[in-house]
């Protein structure tokens, strides 16, 4: 461990569309401002799908929202930067310029977006509203592009544009969310739990679509989920989050095959699988932390970690590149042996 980096170095030839550095986001609570995201770094590159996994409350949505500088009150970005190619540091933007970036260069599909459509307006009307709020001149062109995207996703475009939210199934609404996120030619697509409320068949269909539009538009895509299966289906890179920190980060296949952080290992081990020995699988001990129970010194995972040792009590491990392209934040040995 020689180098302590917060952000994977952009050594590869793919250009970074978004690079997050040293980002800390806090929420104001009765006990003062507590960090939901701590010194996180991540890069989204064109042509690459990054999966962000972690338990509920680990700060995934908060991190994703900070990419738009849209953390809701009582939260705020306390430090760090979010550089978006061609736009600059989003955390410095305000007002109209910020609104133009949201939904413009950065397309966002909200968690539970099945329910985030306006129930009183047809999808088409909401599309036009979106266009007007971004001062699109050519509304005809906008509708045309939305039609194309919708058809591309296996939707009957005319019917969908004329529909109200309640007339669409969960899977269809999720697709509409993606259409609206991409219609303004976003280069970055952020999906927060896009399949959580869907059944397996709809989930597979939505993931297929995400993969296809990602490839066709050479997007930089971030997919936030708590489901290891989902990331492993679509992601090229995988970032694992726990207690507001990114604890492991690297190429998805490698991380899944040879997880280097005890939490990643536990998360994979706790996944219900369709093959293999059911008795080998284990739930994680303890409960996921929230802002108030999060350790303030030492490693945030130590209460539930099978490898915790004395040093973990005192020192918060930093995210370091332990082998080219792979990052981890843990004092123990990457193979899972005790330090």
């Amino acid at each position, binding site marked *: 461990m020689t180098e302590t980096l917060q952000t994977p170095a952009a050594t590869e030839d793919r250009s970074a569309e978004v690079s997050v550095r040293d980002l800390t986001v806090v929420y104001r609570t009765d006990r003062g401002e507590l960090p939901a995201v701590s010194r996180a770094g991540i890069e989204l590159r064109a042509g690459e799908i990054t999966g962000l996994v972690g*338990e509920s409350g680990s700060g995934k949505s908060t991190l994703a929202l900070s990419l738009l500088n849209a953390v809701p009150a009582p939260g705020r970005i306390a430090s760090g930067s979010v550089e978006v190619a061609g736009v600059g540091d989003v955390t410095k933007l305000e007002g109209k310029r910020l609104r133009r970036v949201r939904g413009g260069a950065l397309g966002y599909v909200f968690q539970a977006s099945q329910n985030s459509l306006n129930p009183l307006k047809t999808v088409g009307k909401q599309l036009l509203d979106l266009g007007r709020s971004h001062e699109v001149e050519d509304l005809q062109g906008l509708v045309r592009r939305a039609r194309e995207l919708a058809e591309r996703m*296996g939707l009957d475009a005319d019917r969908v544009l004329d529909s109200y939210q309640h007339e669409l199934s969960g899977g269809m609404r999720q697709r509409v969310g993606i259409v609206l996120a991409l219609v303004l030619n976003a280069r970055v697509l952020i999906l927060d739990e896009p399949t959580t409320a869907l059944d*397996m068949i709809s989930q597979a269909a939505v993931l297929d679509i995400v993969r296809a539009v990602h490839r066709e538009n050479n997007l930089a895509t971030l997919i936030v989920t708590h489901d290891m299966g*989902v990331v492993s289906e679509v992601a090229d890179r995988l970032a694992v989050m726990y207690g507001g920190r990114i604890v492991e980060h690297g190429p998805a296949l490698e991380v899944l095959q040879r997880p280097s952080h005890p939490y990643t290992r536990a998360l994979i081990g706790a996944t219900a*699988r*369709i093959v293999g020995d059911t008795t080998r699988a284990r739930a994680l001990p303890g409960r996921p932390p929230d802002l108030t129970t999060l350790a303030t010194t030492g490693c945030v995972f130590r209460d539930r970690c099978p490898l915790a040792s004395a040093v973990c009590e005192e020192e918060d491990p930093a995210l370091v590149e332990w082998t080219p392209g792979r990052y981890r934040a843990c004092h123990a040995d990457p193979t899972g042996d005790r330090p």
Partner: protein
Amino acid sequence: MIEARNITRTYRTHGAFTGPRTVHALRGVDFTLPKGGAVSFIGESGCGKTTLGKILTGLETFDGGELVVDGTELSGLSPRRRAPYFRRIQMVHQDPYSALNPTRTVGQILGDPLRMRAKETGASRREQEDRAAELLELVGLQPDGVLGKYPHQLSGGQRQRVVIARALTVDPEVLIADEAVSMIDVSMRLGILSLLRDLRERLGISLLFITHDVATARYVGEGGELHVIYRGQVIERGPTDRVIQAPVHPYTQCLLSAIPVLRGIEEPGPDRLVPLASLDERTDTPGCLFAPRCPFATDACTAERPALVRLGDGAGGADDPGGADGAAGAGDAGDHRHACLHPEARHVVAVEAAV
């Protein structure tokens, strides 16, 4: 033991936009749940799983068929006489957030049904309190830690354990778990599943496990049966592992193909299958319910609705359509049934990657 024979439930709705509509939530469902056994129902959203669970717990009525609990046919009884039978069947809800009254502590939540039960068993105050503690320990919680807590002070996994403990207060014989883990944190799902398995093995409680995540059905223990339900009809059933490894109905195959593959550890199954279209309840299907989406549909499929038959009895040989021959075949590896005119075993689920 409970036995369902040809249960049907039809809803007639009058939507403000859609006009009058008939939904066949259940079209004749049969199953037998022996003591300590497990039957899992899997299927897409809206195929009638929750409706079935509610009917079995007495929260919903059925309009055809027969429900037999411990040898007693329930439809012949008055609602008052039915109640004690339904009490033996308890529900574990999908959403542990809404399944517990936010204004009551865990002690009160367990205390109420225990007090009611004490009127029958004559348990003293002290015994009731001990029982509450005992049940919490049984479900893996520290009584001292949680008795005085309100639901919002517990994690999702802890809440679901309290829900299970509450169901156990009335000494049920059957638990109905409707998506019991889908809203629980990933890290804690297996814990709840192994608790359900323990309850089966140690206490002989039977389990009706409802889910759309097939993989979880493997974790509720040995000897389980898997029923695949589509638009209210069971279209394939058999021993859990057998149906997962060698499904013969194209719908089951599509469902199983949709399970994400953990790349790196697993490889996709060789015969993965995708349905031709997404589910549209409005299309009229006189023949096979799955025909509009089935990659193997033939003319025969749209003409005739296949009934559930034993595998090997030949397509269309509807000699035993009900499959209501009771407990005899419950765990039998040979009792694999399907409702397809062209059944063919395919391997669609992931296989473990060679490391």
